[in-house]
């Protein structure tokens, strides 16, 4: 997911030399198969979401997305993102600074630990917080005697989402800062700038596109996380439902057009994230 994105143009192919390209009918065939695959797996679902959302007309759509439950889900989703994304940005910058600017023993182990959430099922991410904070969990009795709710409440949703999205910013910044080295920072320090000044005036401008890239990936995943949040949310209507959970609830009640209406909002968010991501790739490719 991260570290593999191509950010710049490679050597351009002319495709004129017949020795290193395929005969026209093979090219046509490969193109047709690839585009059919993309059509079935990407374009069709995308179209279907919006068609289903507007199936009962624009009024039904507006009613569905302006319902109080949906608005509550929007608020909770944005609140979660407002907590999770800044925390993961701070963590990502800290981790990238420590890993990219210094040599120490066990660096690869640390990077593997940061990557762990990629290999953990979202359901398990939710489960671990139920095991710790749930009613029958390790801290459950203590929490309930002090009237603190974490599971089936907002703190649990935030924790599970943080767990899932920990790697996103860090994984973008680490290779970028490793590549840039630390000569510029060293020069700034020699010229008399302090540590914070060096970071804000030298490092931050250098990593801003990578940072924004990470923020976009992290936000998209935070807003869209379903599995982990589903385990800890408790599905309390109007209270602990994020937008992806609201979609599930509506769908399971056979309220399909409303489910797709809410889904279309999330799809627009996903498309905006993709557009922003491509804009950054284009922008940083200019340098």
């Amino acid at each position, binding site marked *: *997911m991260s570290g*593999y*994105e*191509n950010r710049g143009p*490679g*050597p351009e*192919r002319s*495709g004129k030399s017949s*020795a*290193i*390209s395929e005969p026209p009918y093979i090219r046509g065939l*490969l193109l047709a*198969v*690839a585009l059919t*695959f*993309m059509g079935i*797996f*990407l374009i069709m*679902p995308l179209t279907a*979401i919006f068609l*289903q959302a507007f199936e009962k007309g624009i009024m039904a759509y507006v009613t569905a997305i302006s319902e109080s439950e949906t608005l509550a889900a929007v608020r909770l989703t944005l609140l979660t993102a407002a907590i999770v994304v800044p925390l993961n940005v*701070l*963590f990502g910058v800290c*981790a990238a*600074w*420590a*890993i990219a*600017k*210094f*040599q*120490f023993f066990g660096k690869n182990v640390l990077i*593997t630990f*940061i*990557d762990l959430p990629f290999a*953990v*099922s*979202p*359901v*398990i991410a939710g489960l671990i917080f139920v*095991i*710790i904070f749930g009613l029958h969990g390790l801290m459950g009795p203590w929490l309930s005697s002090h009237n603190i709710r974490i599971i089936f409440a907002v703190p649990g949703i935030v924790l599970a989402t943080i*767990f899932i999205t*920990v790697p996103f910013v860090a994984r973008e910044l680490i290779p970028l800062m490793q590549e840039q080295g630390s000569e510029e920072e*060293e020069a700034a*320090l020699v010229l008399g700038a302090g540590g914070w000044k060096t970071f804000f005036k030298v490092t931050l401008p250098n990593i801003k596109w990578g940072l924004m890239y990470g923020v976009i990936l992290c936000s*998209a995943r935070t807003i*869209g996380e*379903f*599995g982990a949040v589903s385990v800890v949310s408790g599905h309390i209507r109007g209270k602990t439902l994020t937008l*992806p959970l609201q979609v*599930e609830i509506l*769908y399971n009640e056979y309220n399909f057009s409303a489910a*797709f209406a809410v*889904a279309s909002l999330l*799809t627009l968010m*996903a498309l905006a*994230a*993709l*557009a922003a991501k*491509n804009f950054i790739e284009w922008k940083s490719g200019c340098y």
Partner: protein
Amino acid sequence: MNKIKRGVLPGFGFTMGCTMLYLSLIILIPLSTIFFRASGYGWAQFWETVTSPRVVASYKLSFGAALAAAGINSFFGLLVAWVLVRYRFPLRKVIDGLVDLPFALPTSVAGIVLTTMYAENGWIGRYLGEVGIKVAFTPLGIIMALVFIGLPFVVRTVQPVLQYLEPELEETAAILGANRKQTFIKVLLPGLLPAITTGFAMAFARGLGEYGSVVFISGNMPMRTEVAPLLIITKLEQFDLPGAAAIACVMLVASFVFLLIINFLQWWSGRYQRAV
């Protein structure tokens, strides 16, 4: 060298401390509680839970479907990457940008739209139903959902390698008398294989733990279409925390083995790219 660097740039203690604290609180300590909780179960009961027929069936299904989906994605991922890098066609940039849609789209949205498409009266399910193929609420549906979820991985690992492959390599092969097929199989494919394998492993790891998109299309019938993450939730709803933890333990160990393999492959394919 190390000491000099540490002496010049400030902030190692602070950033390292914050990183370790955050990682411990959010990832390491919480994750270790799963093993702790499962161990409270006793070995015999743990073994009984993770080898009960329903659990074994869910492992097999999760494992098999993830494997099949990652295989399909390896083939089509290579094809899509090839077409995107080598050929020029209208809307190429748009399609290139859309490859990442499964990363950005919430899995519940993917789940409901795929179910609608592949249901008996859906856009695709209708025609497949006429020839006797049922997709929704069968293991095939699970594979379809996992193909969607894992689509970007192979494309995005293969694309940069393909982009930076030197044309001289293919020209030399052609001059030496290889035809296009031989050039592809003997010259290009070995160079792409590490990237394909990395993408395969990432798509597989993602598919193994996938819940959101699968839960809608699978129908969730015990022994037939019940994936392992769903079984964890079922145990949880029955207040069987140790049981859920036991199933999760087995999945975690499997995932960690895969993470190690992915990291090894990244190092391996990276070494290849540096050599070129």
